[in-house]
């Protein structure tokens, strides 16, 4: 077994064991949201870290997934899982439609296009009150209590939800790993490294960019649905440019193309700042400074930099 896998499984075990040690509801809440962020950042990593597509509108898919999941429960009374699946499906459909023309465009134009798209979505969500509740959508129902094998499980409890998120995170990492370790993943990386060479070798770059884009948006939508039901209320800002920017900073700083990066990113840039109440006002400044320092001195991110120290260390960093 590879050293990386050992570390990864160790981390996984730690994650499973945490609720047994940590009893505080507040901490469980924070860790659950951290988990959702990790799912979201992983999806952006697929797009940016592996395929090289810098999207400034990724949060839009998070938001669309969240709102779809919430609205199908609120307006049609569908159960959570069904609404989640519909939300993922609709978001993926949408991303494929918008990606089809947009992914032909390269470089900063593409990034700007995604930013424009994300901003438009946020404005629409904000202004279409009758559907989305405008400034805030609340009253999203809690997950039900279920009888399973004689046990009564309350999915809405902090503990159960934490496990749901951890499970989803594992699933996400599994999906991404499996895709990357195949001709599809190789195509993604070839597009990132040198698109012209990839095409000269027979890779249909548009098709594979689209696959990456659609998969990333599907995962982001799933994270959105999980977020919606956990929080009980959502706002249009979760789809907005500030959120998209923060996500990009998380993956650039954490380390694109690594699992460690998707852990470090949200940990350093969301989890830690949340505890520093006084520093809230300094957050954008801090983010910008960190982003600058990383891109100039450590372009492979923190995880990448650690890996580069020595090949022996490289093998242990997932």
């Amino acid at each position: 077994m590879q050293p990386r896998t050992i570390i990864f499984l160790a981390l996984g075990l730690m994650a499973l064991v945490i609720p047994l040690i940590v009893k505080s509801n507040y901490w469980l809440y924070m860790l659950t949201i951290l988990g959702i962020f990790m799912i979201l950042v992983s999806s952006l990593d697929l797009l940016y870290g592996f395929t090289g597509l810098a999207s400034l509108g990724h949060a839009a898919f998070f938001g669309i997934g969240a709102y779809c999941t919430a609205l199908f429960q609120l307006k049609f009374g569908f159960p959570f899982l069904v609404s989640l699946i519909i939300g993922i499906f609709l978001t993926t459909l949408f991303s494929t439609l918008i990606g089809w023309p947009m992914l032909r465009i390269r470089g900063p134009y593409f990034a700007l296009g995604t930013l424009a798209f994300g901003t438009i979505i946020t404005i629409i969500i904000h202004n279409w009150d009758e559907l989305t509740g405008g400034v805030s959508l609340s009253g999203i129902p809690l997950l039900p209590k279920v009888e399973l094998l004689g046990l009564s499980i309350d999915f809405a409890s902090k503990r159960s939800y934490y496990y749901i998120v951890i499970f989803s995170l594992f699933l996400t990492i599994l999906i991404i790993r499996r895709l990357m370790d195949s001709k599809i993943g190789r195509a993604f990386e070839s597009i990132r490294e040198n698109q012209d060479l990839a095409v000269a070798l027979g890779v249909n770059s548009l098709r594979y960019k689209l696959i990456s884009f659609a998969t990333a948006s599907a995962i982001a939508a799933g994270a959105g649905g999980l977020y919606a039901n956990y929080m009980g209320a959502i706002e249009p800002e979760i789809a907005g440019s500030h959120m998209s920017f923060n996500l990009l900073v998380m993956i650039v700083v954490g380390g694109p193309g690594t699992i460690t990066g998707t852990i470090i990113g949200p940990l350093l840039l969301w989890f830690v700042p949340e505890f520093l109440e006084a520093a809230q006002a300094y957050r954008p400044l801090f983010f910008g400074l960190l982003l600058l320092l990383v891109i100039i001195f450590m372009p492979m991110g923190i995880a990448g930099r650690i890996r580069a120290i020595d090949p022996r260390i490289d093998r242990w960093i997932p």
Partner: protein
Amino acid sequence: MDSIKTVKNSTLLKADMLSVTFGRLKAVDNIDFEIQAGELFGLIGPNGAGKTTIFNAITNTVPISGGSVRFMGKFIHGTKPHEVAKMGVVRIFQSATIFTKTPVLVHIMNGLHCRSTTTYWGALLRTPSFKKEEAGNRKRARELLKFTNLECVEDQPAGSLSWAQQKRLMLATALSVDPKLILLDEPIAGMNADEIAEMIELIKTIRTNGITTIVIDHNMKVMMNICDRMMVMNFGQKLTEGPPETVAQDPRVIEAYLGSSKNDQSQ
């Protein structure tokens, strides 16, 4: 290596009145040529003569402004670049164009992309057919690794290789696409004598296996040695064409390379 289904001595690639214009610059000006299956065709000329542009036109990486290029009878014109590769035309770029961060073995496997039938869900669910194909891909990549003498660097990122190794890697990757026609753009540039000899061996072996090759290079000695036929270009136009000995003695060629001098008889 796999046998090629083309009939030897049939026309593989045909260019008719090919022109490529960039703005006011006629990079390729009304050129005709025919490449026979199985031959090693050389393309020479001073820098800026339009040789690389011809390669770009053959792979449809730049649009053709006039005339046509046909590969096995099919017009290149409407075919997307990645489809051209799938059809069997693979080019190797002039500079060390590689996937820098990719390990060597995986790098070669990239060429197998268009020949693999793995699907998205096959990869996700790890179906038996997926596993079988991946194993086959690895095996094939290994063969090419051995062929180009890169076994010792199998796991290293492509960017860490020496220049000559990178060129061999580019060749191995191109070969994994299973091409009928391979376009080599300055394959031995920047190499020392030993490395050149090694590369020539590889090119000759490729030819023996039936793959048609077009080579651009400036090393006249080597070109005379390996090419069956050559075409000389200057300022986007064809100067002359024929077997190496004939071409080398053509006064127009000498003039283009060395400048004209009434009393100058040197080659």
